[in-house]
């Protein structure tokens, strides 16, 4: 399983000389499964560059949306493959009692916010509510679970062979809870992230900033680290950077996070901050060969 970060910023794009290294595009992660199937996790502005990197040939891909806040869907109408008739796109997302996924996304992909309507997209696009139980895409098993954020929001777990990716970009599991004391089954998102090979998790605020943002749906550094420790993720990438955080501030935050992680007994190399275009390869061990007569 190959993972590439195309957008690491939260809330709103933050382009400029101050954010070149960590990136200014909003949430999007590209995943290539062992069998070649392609997934995009969220469709923030980062998906525009992901689309430009895809070959101009018949393509089938799945877009897994955690929720429909603008920083997670804004790139949809600038996703080049959506404008190719030979492309098939399946968009997965959270159900809502209010309206279908298609109708809710159409509120953005329609006038006056968009020059095109969903029905005008040349690609073959379909919309599916994530099932409560695990399902398969290509060689992977996908699991979606509701997590603590504002509005219906999912986190995802992708198991491909022996490797697993947990993606919970918008998450405030410590809201009204002590993550260090709480039982595992009472921690939001726990089963998605448990023992994951790679955890991509909300780390929007510094510990000093968090008290001014309680209930906004995002984590402080310490909360993200506590969540990573409790879930025993092998490697954690702090994601969804605050748009006000410059590269220099994020460098300092990364150093602070590593220091805290070591204090918690972890390996400093297992914690990092998400940087746009970073790539991770999660080894997928093939099933052991069995002797045949």
């Amino acid at each position, binding site marked *: 399983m190959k993972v590439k970060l195309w957008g690491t910023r939260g809330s709103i794009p933050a382009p400029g000389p101050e954010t070149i290294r960590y990136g200014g595009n909003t949430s999007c992660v590209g995943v290539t499964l062992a069998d070649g199937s392609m997934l995009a996790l969220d469709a923030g502005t980062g998906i525009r560059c992901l689309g430009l990197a895809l070959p101009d040939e018949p393509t089938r891909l799945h877009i897994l949306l955690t929720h429909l806040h603008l920083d997670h869907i804004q790139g949809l109408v600038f996703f080049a493959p959506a404008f190719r008739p030979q492309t098939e796109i399946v968009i997965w997302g959270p159900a*809502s009692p209010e309206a279908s996924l298609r109708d809710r996304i159409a509120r953005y992909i329609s006038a006056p916010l968009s020059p095109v309507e969903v029905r005008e997209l040349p690609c073959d696009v379909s919309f599916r509510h994530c099932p409560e139980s695990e399902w398969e895409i290509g060689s992977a098993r996908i699991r979606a679970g509701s997590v603590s954020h504002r509005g219906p929001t999912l986190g995802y777990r992708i198991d491909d062979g022996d490797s697993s990716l947990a993606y919970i970009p918008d998450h405030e599991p410590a809201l*009204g809870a002590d993550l260090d004391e709480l039982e*595992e089954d009472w921690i939001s998102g726990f089963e998605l992230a448990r023992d994951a090979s790679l955890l991509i998790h909300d780390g929007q605020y510094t510990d000093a900033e968090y008290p001014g943002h309680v209930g906004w749906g995002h984590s402080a550094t310490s909360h993200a680290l506590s969540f990573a420790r409790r879930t025993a993720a092998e490697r954690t990438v702090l994601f969804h950077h605050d748009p006000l955080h410059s590269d220099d501030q994020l460098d300092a935050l990364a150093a602070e996070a590593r220091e805290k992680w070591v204090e918690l007994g972890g390996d400093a190399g297992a914690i990092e901050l998400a940087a746009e275009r970073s790539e991770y390869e999660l080894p997928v061990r093939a099933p052991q060969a069995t002797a045949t007569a």
Partner: protein
Amino acid sequence: MSFVTQRPLELILARNLMSALSTPAFLVDEGGLLVFYNEAAGMLLGKRFEELGTVGPQEWGSLFGPFDESGEPIPYDDLPLVRAVRAGRPAHAELTIRSTDGTQHDVEVSAFPIQTPHGSQGAIAVFWPSLVNGNGAGRA
């Protein structure tokens, strides 16, 4: 891999909220299992949730002996939490509970179901001091 049986998010958020309240509050899951009550409820009952742990529906229904106005035990099926879980409707009642030291408290109980896109996930009950019978003050 095997997953832990994680609580539904709605129950997690309900517990988090209840933990911050000074009003006694109880939480049951969709099967009627008492999965949490807060510190205020623990003070009323004389036993913290951590001491009691999760208990089944029949057990918690009788554990603190809810009585009606005439002192008769309230049938399990008539308890507000049970009605809220089973019928998916709010329920309210005045009743008397007995704490572990024998003190009795007159309370009003409001229970309401936790409905989610995936169906009912349990119910919450909040205890209020009774205005009719002595403001909920304990009596031996």
